[in-house]
């Protein structure tokens, strides 16, 4: 069963590549390139999963995560942080998972598959 996934990433080529791959894995992918654009899109598409880059310009990933959790469907949303750091302390507790970039794609695929099976 496919999931609705929101990708929030300022590096365009990475974001686009990830969206293509999500579609190939059978999910519905939505891409935004900054934090501010993520909220209206999230309200509209009501994603099951949000993959969020922490180091975003202006509104960063941690701030965005808090906003997403506050939405109506926020508590049910799987929030995954994508960071350049191994150190998890830079990631706020709102996140359910923390993946280090570059993301090991098999891990991400399994993570989403498990979520879809629930």
């Amino acid at each position, binding site marked *: 069963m496919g999931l609705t996934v929101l990708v929030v990433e300022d*590096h365009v*080529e*990475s974001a*686009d*590549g*990830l969206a293509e*791959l999500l579609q190939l894995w059978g999910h519905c992918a939505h891409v935004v390139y*900054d934090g501010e654009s993520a909220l209206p899109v999230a309200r509209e598409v009501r994603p099951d999963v949000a993959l969020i880059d922490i180091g975003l310009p202006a509104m960063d990933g941690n701030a965005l995560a808090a906003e997403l959790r506050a939405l109506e469907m926020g508590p049910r949303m799987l929030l995954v942080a994508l960071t*350049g750091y191994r150190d998890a302390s830079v990631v706020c507790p709102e996140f359910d998972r923390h993946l280090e970039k*570059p993301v090991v794609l098999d891990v991400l695929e399994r993570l989403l598959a498990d979520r879809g099976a629930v």
Partner: protein
Amino acid sequence: MPQVDARAPGRARSLSRGAIGAIGGAAILLTLVSVAALWQQSGAMEAGDAARRALEIQRQVVIVRQHITDVETGQRGFVLTGERAYLEPYDRGRGQIPADLDRLRRLTASDPEQQRRVDALAPMVTAKLQEMAGTVDLRAHGDAEGALDLVRSGVGKDAMDRIRADLDEIAADARGALQDLLDERTSRGRRSAFFIVLGNALALLVVATAAWILARLLARALAAEARRRESEARLYVTLRSIGDAVIATDHDGGVVFMNEVAQRLTSWSEADARGKPLADVFAIVNEQTRKTVESPVDRVIREGKIVGLANHTVLLSRDGREVPIDDSGAPIRDADGALMGVVLVFRDVTERNRAEAARRQAMWAEAARAQAEQANEAKDAFLAVLSHELRSPLSAMLAWTRVLERSPDDATRRARALAVLDHSIKVQVNLINDLLDVSRIVSGKFDLQRGPVDLVKELAECLDGLQPAMRAKGLTLVRTATVPRLVVDGDAPRLAQVMRNLVDNAIKFTPEDGRIEVRLEAVGGDAAFSVADSGEGFEPELATVIFDRFEQRSDPHSRRHGGLGLGLAIVRHIVLEHGGTVVASSPGPGKGATFTVRIPAAATLRTAAEIPVPDEEAVDLHGVRVLLVEDDADWREAVVLGLEERGAEVTVAASVPEALARFPEARPQVVVSDIGMPQQDGFDLIAAIRKLDGPPPRIVAMTGFADGATREDCRRSGFDVFLAKPFEPGRLVAAIGHLLAAR
């Protein structure tokens, strides 16, 4: 103590001078008093003689009167009686009277008044005697009556009365004189006694004073002697126990004294050394050249003033040891200032040298640590950016590779995937190249391979390579090259990198359909290259900051364009290493930016990177005179230590006026000057030095203002080498060695 010793003899001298004066005066006074006493004494004696004479006169008057009375008595008796017996006293008296009168005349010889009386007496006596003789004759011839008549006539009685009156006068006069003389004798005797007493008192006083002065002089002499002995003993003990080595010589330089430390350091015993020339006992050579250093004692004897030893002096001890020493010699002078000898004080500086080396080490270590700390902070921030910038293309590459795997036949996806891969790899390559460049810059290994470079040709190649990127954004390129060839002395690939980075930057920050103008021209002796765009521009106050390493604008679009922010830092470094300048300007955000590079056609200003650092130990600066001008005391000290370690003779000055004042004596071959100093700066210094006579020194600029403008000013002002602070001491040593070798 020396003051006391110097003063005491003077005081004693003045004391004895005073004593002599007092005693001399007293002696004169005593003589006068004695003369007065003698004079009074002889006056008293004369008065006594005169009194005796006056007494004699009185007695003689009585005798004369008696004899005349005797004669008269005899005459009367005979006249009355006719008895012959009466004639016997008469005759005897007559015989005595002339002698009596003579005696009286002699006695009164000194008094004219009395003389006159005696002279008047004589005829009266003669007349009386004749009158009496007449009566006696008459009586003897029997005429008793006639004789009696004569007697009765009273003639004889009148004469006799006159004689008596005259004699009474003489006697009275003598009596009066006697009283006066006795009074005079008494008073003269008293005065004489007074003078004698006075003289005795004076003599007593003189003797007492002399005795007191002698006692004081003796006491002083004893005290001075005691002090002298004590001070001598203390001096001796002091010299013996002083922590430094002490050798004293006589005025010919022969050793007369050595303390224990001196004996230990030289391995000469005092007994052996005594009388030997100092050069035998105190053999010193220069640490590096091994040449004998002139004995400081000879210099002291020649110059007559205190002298210090040159640095790096080694004492060769008698048993073959070598001891690095530090010493000074000073003349020993006697109270009149004549040279008696020389005292030489020296010490073993092995420990101090070691401590100094350690301190120098610590100083550099501390400077390095502070620098490292600062660099570390910048590095941490940079690493965060680097991590992001390296991982982002990797993420893209991994994702699109997986997409290619999953749907190899989707032509659209494949084309996008390949484009992303190609672009991401290029981005990575550029990032890695920039990193390597920065790494070289940081580690000081960014070396230029110089040669003639035609900038016109390099620019054409650069623009050709960037055409696709410009076309992709629809940018208009306007290029202006005013000359067919523009050759500078430089590193061709590096200068091409400068052009590429600047044009690339313009492409990156200029929105689509924008405009980029590139100009290359010869201005003065420089090649001027500029890139102007219609892009985003920047706040004017950021004009210098944007060149800083790791400096990334924190606003969103810098991230949108990606990159490490190293490009401009690398550009600046390359340009500065070429002795050139790079300046950025913008009227403000959104109004475009212009970058202008100037490269001197023939650079004369060398930078640290252009001078290879050889094995530092190989650079020998012995005999090289350096004038160091630096207002920062810590830097001054650090640089002095670094230079002196290599043997340079460094004269230091903390300001430009001080440097100019010391210049004639220092006669520097190399001047190392700070640029930014209060009042007068390094440019004022170089301008002043250029006006001086004599061979011009090579001049090294060192400054914390490592910006292009300062470097350009240094080049124009004629500095030979430009060092950006902080630098390793080896850099400066190498630069000086290089400058002198090139001469």
